[in-house]
């Protein structure tokens, strides 16, 4: 690879001068609303997880760390965790400025390359296959939607080990009404490409069961159920469940479209708003929908007929129109992920439009980062709306209010400063 291009450096310097002259930001320092790089050199590459002589993971200098199709991130406190999707692993950016491997050997699969201890595999000996989402449980453990494993996996930081939490690995739709495991250890639940995981305030776990076209719940008592969408018969996709119906009625009678078969990409991600509604990207319907709890305030408890679904963003047609107007009248293109701020502001990874959209508390939509409809890679240090992104699959809010963007085909994580 060539070194930094002289012309480009001049260009960047020139741009910086221009910006400061125009008073857009400080002399050298990007400010509010500007986009900057966080992680990734832009090269599509995988850094193999390496260990020191004592078996401890070695960090890679932030400036040198490379990613292979990052799709999402999450924060544990101030620490950033990144999903290196086609690198088949989870990585962590520490305060020391180094990137550490957390889970995954870098080889797709579902095996443990060392001996299981109490049914758990050392995180760096565990194979995973295209993990798509992560979150943290109340105890701080890392929960992974191991997408192409069709399993949920849980990583315990104290023991640095990973175990299967739920899902047999069969791509099927099984197990509602019971626990993930039977008394004899049998795996009773099957997912089909679980793409997203989110906890409600009561600790119930919600799972976007992508190819089954449903959202499922693992209650605090361990019982698994379906709370949204309808799949008459699973088993490697649920074509009978695909549709765009049900708005205004019970969520369990609605139909979603998260893509099918081998062609689907991670889709249908979940997020709770401050009022306890479950929002999700109905990706292949090009909308964001909202699932409201009944009077008991808990989705999945009580009468399912009182849990109503509606579309809140998008008119159901792929496109990029609508900025400045009501979100419901706007167009999205394969929206994939959501992040919701404490004040209810919604950020949408509008993947097919190569931008991030924002819906404010009044329901007005605007472009927050990137130029919708224009893929590319540019704009670091300047306003996010002047930058170009390329198929951003994921968004996440940092504790300081910065919006992190998985700029997937640019092989980087970027952020928009608060």
């Amino acid at each position, binding site marked *: 690879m060539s070194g930094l291009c002289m012309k480009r450096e001049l260009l960047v310097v020139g741009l910086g001068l221009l910006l400061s002259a125009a008073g857009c930001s400080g002399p050298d320092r990007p400010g509010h609303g500007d986009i900057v790089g966080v992680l990734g050199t832009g090269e599509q590459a*995988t850094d193999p997880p390496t260990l020191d002589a004592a078996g401890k993971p070695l960090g890679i200098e932030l400036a040198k760390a490379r990613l292979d199709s990052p799709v999402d991130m999450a924060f544990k406190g101030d620490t950033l965790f990144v999903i290196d999707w086609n690198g088949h692993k989870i990585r962590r950016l520490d305060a020391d400025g180094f990137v550490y491997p957390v889970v995954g050997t870098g080889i797709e699969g579902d095996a443990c390359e060392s001996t299981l201890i109490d049914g758990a595999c050392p995180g760096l000996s565990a194979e995973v296959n295209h993990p798509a989402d992560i979150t943290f449980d109340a105890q701080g453990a890392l929960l992974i939607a191991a997408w192409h494993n069709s399993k949920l996996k849980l990583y315990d930081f104290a023991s640095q080990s990973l175990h299967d939490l739920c899902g047999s690995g069969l791509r099927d739709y099984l197990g509602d009404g019971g626990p993930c495991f039977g008394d004899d250890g049998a795996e009773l639940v099957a997912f089909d490409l679980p793409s997203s995981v989110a906890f409600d305030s009561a600790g119930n776990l919600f799972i976007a069961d992508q190819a089954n076209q449903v959202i499922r719940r693992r209650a605090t008592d361990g019982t698994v159920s379906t709370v949204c969408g309808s799949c008459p018969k699973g088993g490697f996709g649920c074509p009978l469940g695909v549709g765009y119906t049900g708005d205004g009625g019970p969520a369990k009678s609605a139909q979603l479209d998260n893509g099918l078969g081998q062609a689907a990409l991670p889709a249908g991600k979940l997020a709770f708003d401050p009022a306890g509604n479950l929002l999700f990207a109905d990706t292949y319907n090009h909308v964001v929908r909202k699932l409201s709890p009944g009077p008991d305030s808990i989705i999945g408890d009580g009468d399912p007929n009182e849990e109503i679904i509606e579309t809140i963003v998008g008119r159901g047609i792929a496109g990029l129109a609508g900025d400045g107007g009501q979100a419901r009248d706007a167009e999205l293109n394969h929206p994939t992920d959501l992040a919701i701020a404490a004040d209810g502001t919604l950020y949408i990874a509008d993947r097919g439009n190569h931008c991030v959209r924002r819906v404010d508390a009044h329901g007005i939509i605007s472009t927050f980062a990137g130029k919708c409809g224009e893929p590319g890679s540019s704009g670091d240090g300047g306003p996010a709306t002047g930058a170009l992104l390329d198929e951003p699959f994921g968004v996440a809010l940092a504790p300081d209010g910065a919006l992190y963007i998985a700029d997937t085909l640019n092989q980087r994580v970027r952020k928009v400063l608060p």
Partner: protein
Amino acid sequence: MGDATQALKTLARRAALGLLSFGAGCGPGEALAPSQAKPIPGMVTTAVGTGTQGFDGDGHAPLKTWLNQPTELAFDPSGQLEIVDWNNHRIRRLSASGSFETIVGAELPGDWPLDVPLDETVVGTALHVNHPLDLAFSAGETFIAAWHNHKIERLDANGAVHVVAGANRPGYAGDGGAAQAALLNFPASLVVQTDGGMLVADERNNVVRRLAPDESRTMSTVAGVKGKPAYAGDGGPAAEAALGLSPAAEVDGSDNPPPGGGLALAEDGTLYVADTFNHCVRRITPGADGLLGVGDASEETIETFAGSCGQAGYDPSATAGDALLLRDPSDLELYAGALYIADTGNHVVWRVELETSQATLWVGNGQPGSRPEPSAPLETQLNRPYGIGFDAAGNLYIADTMNNRIRVLWQ
């Protein structure tokens, strides 16, 4: 997305990131002259790859091309090297001008759209595939084991891809009918028979299937009984035997076996099967017609050729085929009277004489790694070599998968 759009996108992105140089004044550019490996007789060197695991785009010379866990290689009828760039989800080909180009695959893994009409075609670089695993050439066309797509694809001479067999889900169905109506479960390896038929290691079904050379490519199962991996049947008909092409530890039907079940077909029609998770190599002798899957199936018998089925291990001093210990052998190649075995889990390549079963450790010191080159064959470190192949000159190419390189033992 159109080809041109994609190319422009890639170009624009790379330019923006400073990965392209535009001639003078733009820093040290990458030489456009081919950077080819220089043969060193009797030694192992890298032929393709820098060791970096990734995708740095097409158009680079072999020693400047990044690979991502390459699992297999083959020389096409024109003698050009093709590589299964497994975790880049692409098939790459060395062009006449000396640079690597993608012939099948695109950004992000995937598949055809759902419910694509079976007579539909698409340009190779517009087709997303998911972890392709093997290549074969027949009648001017390239056949691809689209492993995690559960399909066999065909790239015709015009660059268009067709679905040959399989659907949008794994399964075991369609014997006796047209291949396009059949279901496969992780097709891992392909070989072409002398009658134009094709044999497929149907990994997760633990069988070998045949596509007959008739118009509909009629499907049949020629070795193994569909089911869980097992070891049985030596001395009897191959169709009644049990194979271990996929690992036993997996839940049946689960989505994530490692690659297994490489095939090699001798000129006399004898089929060698890497019985990967039985840790041995099986040999299937055809009937009098010399064509496996044709004629009386009871005449097609199976036996163990190398390794100790059911026992994984490593003994570098082994000198007889039946004393050999293997660990997850995944690819086989026949050359000059011997069978070469990519003994993936032991990080070595073995050579076993077909006549005498004399075994010789051929490449690798048994330790995963990538020690400096050039290296003597038995001092060479490989890291999970999944695939092997010979060029016309007899140089042994090794897909050194976890080193992200193609290595060569030069004649």
